């Protein structure tokens, strides 16, 4: 293991930001800390960077006690949502900063620094931008420079705090691919904070889901998606339709039909959840009776909204070629889940 976080707690004057958090990052791993705002993910990142101290717990990196080292000594590269580029320095000066400030004997020669800056500029595909100032760059370019600046010190660990939060959707997607490529090329262990589940699932080798300062689940993207351990993880990773039913022997019985359940709950009346793509619609039933509100394209699928008689709205997804494509707003239909989840 390269990064080991054990039982870390951190509280501020009037609230506990983190409670007994433990996780590990493997060498060269790309780990995402995913959670809504207030879940403690940025606090955790600041602890890793040495910008704050935990109240209890331990953080070690490659066997070394990180808590004994200050932010400067940890040699951790950090990238901020706000970019935090030095506004009075050129792109090249920004990238060179971490090498320039090294004390005399550790500082590389001017020529070495220049060569390093040039290789990083080419890594971020901005060879011709060295003499520009941050204000002359787009948001995406600024974030690339910020990453190059962090990589210049050959960090042992790279920390990214919502790096794409301030960018628009298209640039974000583009940079995501690019970041993953850079990570694979440099191989530096990376911890990445985000509140965007799509981003976390798309980028990370493993995802740590945080809620109210505690870890809900740790797993690979597919694992989280297929085997969510709590209702929170299920709801956070995608759209959830909610229904009530009777759980017994791995099946949930509804009014006139029953469905296989992935369950951690005890038998009896339960609240279940199902995904839009784990459902069928038909004109005859069985299923939950409702009226189609809208039929809209959602990429490779059709997305339906169906309102039940009690006002609940279900979202369902189907192939364009399925029967659902013959439905229109106002049609009477039955929604029938094919797989449901019940959480304790």
């Amino acid at each position, binding site marked *: 293991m390269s990064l080991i976080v054990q039982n870390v707690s951190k509280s501020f004057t009037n609230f506990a930001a983190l409670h007994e958090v433990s996780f590990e990052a493997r060498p060269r791993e790309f780990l995402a800390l995913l959670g809504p705002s207030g879940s403690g993910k940025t606090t955790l990142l600041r602890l890793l960077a040495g910008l704050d101290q935990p109240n209890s717990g331990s953080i070690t990196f490659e066997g070394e006690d990180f808590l004994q080292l200050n*932010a*400067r000594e940890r040699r951790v*590269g950090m990238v901020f949502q706000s970019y*935090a580029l*030095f*506004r009075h320095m050129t792109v090249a000066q920004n990238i060179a*900063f*971490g090498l320039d*400030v090294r004390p005399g004997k550790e500082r590389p020669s001017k020529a070495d620094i220049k060569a390093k800056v040039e290789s990083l500029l080419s890594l971020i595909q901005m060879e011709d931008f060295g003499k520009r100032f941050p204000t002359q760059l787009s948001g995406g370019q600024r974030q690339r420079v910020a990453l190059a600046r*962090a990589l210049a010190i050959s960090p042992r660990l790279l920390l990214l705090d919502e790096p794409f939060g301030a960018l628009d959707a298209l640039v974000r997607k583009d940079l995501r691919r690019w970041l993953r490529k850079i990570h694979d090329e440099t191989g530096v262990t990376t911890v990445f904070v985000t509140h965007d589940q799509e981003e976390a699932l798309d980028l990370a080798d493993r995802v740590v889901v945080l809620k109210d300062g505690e870890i809900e689940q740790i797993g690979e993207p597919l694992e989280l998606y297929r085997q969510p351990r709590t209702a929170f993880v299920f709801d956070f990773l995608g759209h959830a339709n909610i229904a009530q039913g009777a759980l017994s022997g791995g099946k949930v019985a509804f009014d006139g039909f029953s469905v296989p359940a992935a369950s951690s709950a005890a038998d009896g009346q339960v609240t279940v959840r199902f995904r839009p793509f784990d459902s069928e619609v038909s004109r005859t039933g069985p299923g939950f009776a409702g009226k189609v509100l809208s039929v809209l394209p959602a990429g490779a699928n059709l997305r339906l909204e169906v309102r039940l008689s009690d006002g609940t709205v279900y979202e369902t997804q189907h192939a364009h070629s399925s029967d659902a494509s013959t439905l229109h707003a106002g049609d009477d239909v039955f929604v029938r889940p094919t797989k449901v989840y019940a959480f304790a």
Partner: protein
Amino acid sequence: MSARAPTLPKTAGAIGLTATAILWLGLIIVLPLVVVIFEAVKEGPSPYLAALAQPDTISAIQLTLLVAAIAVPLNAIFGLAAAWCITRFEFKGKGILLTILDLPFTISPVISGLVWILLFGANGWFGGWLRENDIKIVFALPGLVLATVLVTLPFVARELIPLMIDQGTDEEVAAVTLGARGWDVFFRITLPNIKWALLYGVLLCTARAMGEFGAVSVVSGHIRGLTNTLPLQIEILHYQYESVAAFACASILTGLALITLVLKTLLEWRFAGELAAHRRH
């Protein structure tokens, strides 16, 4: 920078208001300026120069510059430190510190002078001890400096605080994670980001320091050639009906004020984006 603010249509009322404002400024500011220059040179250049060449006047000019040269750097350092701790740290009593910082703006300069008399004067709290140890504070240079420091205390800090709040700490935090030490962070990141605002604050502070009358008047003792600053010298000359000499001195102060104004305008024109006063739209 923000877009140009929308303007109201030019009506008779608007033109009238503008004209009133210009007339008022002319009456209150431009006319006195003209009078100062006119009175100073009305008897020709040689009486003007002779007035400035008086030993008491020369020593008053020197004293004024000396007081400013000590007080302004002190307040620049204090202002930097205060702005740094107020914008970079959370601590109890921050609100009180901010309020106290503004006190010199609101209390009468006479009080700012009087406190030093009460503390260090012959009958003051520390008066006896100072006399025994032969240390002179009031009616001497240290008193003049203290009074000036107190009056001009807020200028630098007040200019820096809004700018430093606006700039945030991300750049400094980034520098630390990149391996920069405390002084490196200050000299390479913090200072370059605030240098023009600092200069602006220093400029305002200097102008006020050289022109200060009330507080300085209380602690000076008006010893000619020794503790008379330029504003005090002008008062003395005026009461002695040495009108040309008084206005000659006044023209020096006015000249210093005009130079400050030009520098201030240059800074505002060239570095508007890096000055706090121009960030509040």
